[in-house]
């Protein structure tokens, strides 16, 4: 027995031994379920039915890829992702600039801006829906105070998309801010000092020193938030429920319906795999940029 332990803990096996628990856990909780659903995607199977699965081949992949509804949902998702992430970058950057100074109560004031990130989706979804509500909503009341007309923001596709984007961007801009702030506070002093010697204008200093320095981080923020926003579900579900019509129905909401309301287990698995592919491509892009930035420095 003692030999066994010695064998196990010998220096040559130390790496695998340390990593094993994590890999086992990830395998059981993530990779194995993924393979399972990969298998299901080749069978006719409904989780709600007692009928045993039968082989279907690539039927569901063909079905999903040729389904115009899926492409419509993808476009909607892309639109929301593009708008929301862009807004997050702009707001996040602006907020970071604000905190890139030393001033009294900085820690406390920073907490105010960080709080939205800590709220639950139910909180954000339900209350933003209230803000947009034409009769009781804060935003609508402010609008009608000036225009005299009630604001029915969620009545049109663009209005509804904006409604979602504002809520999502509000919640996650602090995340971008943290990232950018990390970059801003690390710009070496000598660069600014050099700029000061050159008597560069504030704007010039920003475009030649500050921005290039945090550009890499912005790219990371862009990719990271893109991947996260791609999964957008709760906020959409609560604010518009995909409406008006299907104007704001994102891919995550659609997968949820197919998997948990229609119980088309095979179809949702096939769809999930296509999504997984997209996510892997995005992740690789993300890592590629990280690496490139690293090498450039």
């Amino acid at each position, binding site marked *: 027995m003692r030999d066994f332990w010695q064998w196990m803990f010998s220096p040559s096996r130390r790496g695998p031994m340390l990593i094993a628990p994590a890999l086992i856990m990830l395998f059981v*909780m993530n990779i194995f379920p993924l393979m399972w659903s990969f298998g299901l995607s080749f069978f006719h199977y409904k989780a709600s039915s007692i009928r045993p699965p039968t082989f279907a081949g690539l039927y569901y992949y063909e079905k999903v890829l040729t389904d115009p509804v899926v492409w419509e949902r993808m476009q909607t998702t892309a639109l929301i992702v593009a708008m929301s992430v862009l807004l997050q970058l702009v707001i996040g950057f602006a907020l970071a600039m604000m905190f890139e100074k030393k001033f009294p109560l900085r820690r406390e004031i920073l907490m105010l801006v960080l709080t939205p990130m*800590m709220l639950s989706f*139910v*909180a954000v979804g339900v209350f933003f829906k209230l803000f947009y509500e034409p009769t*009781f909503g804060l935003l609508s009341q402010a609008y009608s105070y000036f225009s005299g007309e009630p604001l029915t923001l969620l009545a049109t596709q663009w209005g509804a998309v904006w409604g979602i984007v504002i809520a999502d961007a509000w919640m996650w801009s602090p995340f971008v801010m943290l990232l950018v702030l990390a970059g801003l506070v690390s710009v070496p*002093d000598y660069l600014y000092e050099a700029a000061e010697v050159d008597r560069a204008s504030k704007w010039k200093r920003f475009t030649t020193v500050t921005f290039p320095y945090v550009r*890499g981080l912005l790219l990371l923020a862009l990719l990271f938030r893109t991947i996260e926003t791609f999964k957008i579900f709760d906020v959409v579900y609560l604010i518009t429920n995909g409406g008006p019509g299907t104007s704001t129905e994102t891919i995550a909401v659609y997968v949820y319906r197919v998997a948990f309301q229609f119980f088309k287990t095979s179809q949702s698995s096939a769809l999930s795999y296509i999504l997984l592919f997209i996510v892997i491509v995005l992740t690789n892009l993300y890592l590629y940029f990280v690496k490139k930035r690293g090498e450039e*420095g």
Partner: protein
Amino acid sequence: MSVLMSLFSRKERRLREAGWGWTLFAGIISLIYFFPVLWIIMTAFKTRADALATPPVFFFTPTLDNFVAVFYRVAQTGSGEAIGTGMGGFFFNSIFVASAGVFLALIIGTLASYGFSRYPLKGNDTYLFVVLTTRMLPPIIVIIPIFLMFRMAGLSGSYIGVILLYAAFNLPFSIWMMKSFFDELSPDVEDSARMDGSSEFGVFFKMCIPQLKAGLAATAVFAVILTWNEFLFALLLTSTDTRTVPVAMARTIGGEIGVEWGLLAAIITLFLIPVFGVTYLLQNHLLRGVTFGTIKK
């Protein structure tokens, strides 16, 4: 030195002093940003009529009824008894499940990151990439097979099931982030300790861990924020006894009466306190976590 390296060199640039004037400016902007949260907190102290008043009211007589209603309700049988809502238990579940899940992820993740950092395997990067990919997946993709798996293992509705799931959910993030901290420590110090006859356990626990306290704290904060508000897994995989607050919160958004604004706001407010407190205490370490550790390379 790369740009990104400098970000993690823990040296903040000497920030410009901005004084109270900037405090005022940043305070006002931040308050505007914080306003929706403030509105929710105010709603927690409002009666229903005040919560929905048109035009909205900013000054009102505060009531604590909503906070009482979080924990007690009046009996439906008309006897006038107060009956517990079980919300105290749900708060306990949330705290227990989130801490246990995060704790487990930290232990396993720290060990693995130590392995990845100190004893790189063949194909180390591939392993790390696979680990990261699991985090980038929309949870909706794995929920179906996890569900089927839990049903076979009899884990549905148990604490263990959810804790394992949350641990796996936080693992990739913990590994990547802790690895970036380990990479920063010099292995030479560890080696010299080994020369002096220190055991492997001694090196790990007595040398590395104390230096990584800050890193562990930052990792924990981010994991807690992400776990704290998780809804989908919690809804589908917990039962009455193990239900968490985000799921139970949904009770207030549709029963006999749409949204119980005051009650929902009170739950949100109470639920914000722990995560706000943790974030405030560990705020200084936060910046490190935001890119999930991928920056350092």
